[in-house]
């Protein structure tokens, strides 16, 4: 029983037959670290972050329809238009998106050919499907004149794709492949893993509320009100992770980063509210403080969501729910047998 109690430390070298954190035996797959594939995945994640910034610049500069056609730009598939005014933001966004699409195609093909883990191959294909869907949503939002639901879906899917790119970069990394996970079971309720999932959920809701406000589909107050819930849930998650599992580096680092990002994001949100809602309500054109604060708010929001997803994955790996917590009561209690 002692061995199964909470916070049991497990440091057993398991090169061939693995004891999964969930308690099941897994057949080890001899995956070797592929540094080129990993670097490529990192490049895709960084490029996607750049793409999110470029997309945020389009919205903040009210340039979403400055190129009125899609998939062509001013009737051309390849000709770069004169990059002035809103076209500078919209067409640059399109060019960065095209490169992101190409990088994703290469990553999916490469992963499919080189990667032995089947689930990772499927994840790379899912990334390709996501980027195609994202491109179609981007086109729809132009052709339908920026309907709030479509534009918000485009904004939310962008960050989803960013999270997928980041986790592929992690799964292909040397640490993930070669590390012997240091496992500590979690018997607290709610478990840290549950808290990380709850954090992702509230962040997603916040992302949708923010996108709907930004794309004129909703007032500002649901996004602002919900930020208090987000701050509470994320602080709870970070405090639990840091107070109980700070000795696990893979958990400690994303937890600290998540805490710092949520503080920064609240400050940026307040600034964005001032520059856009309070001071910029009657602005005759997008003003620089509003553009900078809102774009930074979107970018840090994307980093925060990705960091929380990474934390959830590391918690799943290093701090699984204790085995007996997942057994039915009848199996757990010997007297019931």
């Amino acid at each position, binding site marked *: 029983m002692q061995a199964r109690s909470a916070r049991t430390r497990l440091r057993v070298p398991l090169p061939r037959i693995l004891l999964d954190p969930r308690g099941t035996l897994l057949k080890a797959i001899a995956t070797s670290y592929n540094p080129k594939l990993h670097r490529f995945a990192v490049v895709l994640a960084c490029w996607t972050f750049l793409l999110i910034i470029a997309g945020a610049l389009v919205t903040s500069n009210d*340039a979403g329809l400055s190129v009125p056609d899609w998939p062509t730009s001013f009737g051309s598939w390849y000709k770069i*238009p004169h990059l*002035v*005014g*809103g076209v500078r933001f919209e067409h640059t966004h399109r060019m960065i998106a095209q490169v992101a699409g190409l990088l994703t195609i290469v990553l999916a093909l490469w992963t499919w050919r080189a990667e032995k883990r089947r689930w990772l191959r499927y994840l790379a294909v899912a990334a390709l499907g996501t980027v195609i869907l994202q491109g179609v949503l981007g*086109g729809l939002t132009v*052709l339908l*004149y920026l309907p709030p639901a479509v534009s918000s879906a485009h904004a939310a899917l962008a960050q989803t794709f960013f999270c997928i790119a980041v986790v592929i970069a992690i799964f292909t990394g040397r640490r993930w492949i070669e590390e012997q996970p240091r496992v500590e079971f979690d018997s607290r309720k709610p478990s840290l893993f549950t808290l990380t999932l709850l954090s992702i959920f509230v962040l997603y809701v916040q992302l949708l509320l923010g996108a709907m406000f930004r794309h004129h589909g909703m007032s500002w107050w649901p996004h602002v009100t919900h930020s208090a819930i987000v701050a509470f849930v994320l602080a709870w998650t970070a405090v639990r992770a840091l107070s109980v599992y700070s000795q696990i580096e893979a958990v400690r680092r994303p937890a600290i980063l998540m805490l710092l990002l949520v503080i920064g994001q609240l400050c940026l949100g307040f600034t964005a509210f001032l520059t856009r809602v309070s001071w910029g309500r009657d602005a*005759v*054109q997008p003003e620089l403080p509003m553009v900078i604060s809102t774009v930074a708010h979107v970018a840090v929001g994307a980093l925060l969501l990705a960091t929380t997803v990474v934390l959830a994955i590391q918690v799943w790996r290093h701090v699984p729910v204790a085995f007996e917590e997942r057994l039915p009561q009848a199996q757990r209690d010997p007297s019931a047998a």
Partner: protein
Amino acid sequence: MLAMCGLLLMAACNKKENTEQSNNATEQQAAPAATPIDPATVATVNGTVKFDGTAPKASKIDMSQDPACKGANEAENVVVSGGDLANVFVYVKDGLGNRTFDMPKDPVVLDQSGCRYHPHVLGVMTGQTVQIKNDDPTTHNIHPTPKDNREWNESQPPSSPALEKSFAREEIMLPVKCNQHPWMKMYINVVKSPFYAVTDKSGKYEIKGLPPGDYTIAFVHEKLGEQDQKVTVAAKDTKTVDTTFKPEGAGAGVQ
């Protein structure tokens, strides 16, 4: 695959646009003959629109995003000169009954020059052609965002032929903007009768050719909202109807 989806969507959109345009054409063909008005009895309503309070300082516009946009530019959302309020759309809102009117054959011109719209507020009859010109050495896109009419968004390169558009349904303060130059905004007012005017820089307006009757005159401003006034005009009458707007907050603005 992306291209295929895009082409399918474009085809769908073009089909919808063509259908709507043909519907508009059918509506125009089916329009009943104009109700005759005796020119010997027509009356005139004129007046001045004032602004009561301290006029807001016009915001300077930064056009450095596009080097082709030269010259000084400032916001035209509230234009006050000596207490007179410009850019107020004045029209006969009620009292014309079921009368119908001939649509003017001459188009109304909307010009883009100096990266601003001329005029800032425009009146047009339903179905009447709006001729949109680009006199700037840069590309603009014209994007009306109506509530009751069809939305469209077209780019217009320099020296290209004028665009000719029309609006099928009545709509007051229909916003038009250029997404390439986000400061460029103007309003089109689409009405069924020819009895409308826009106040000039001295706040003055004049509506001629009204048949005798009881009317509601509406004064609509993009930021300061709407005010209505009743007026009765007899044959050959000339009535003066003035009104005064208060600063924003004292009245409802146009959404």
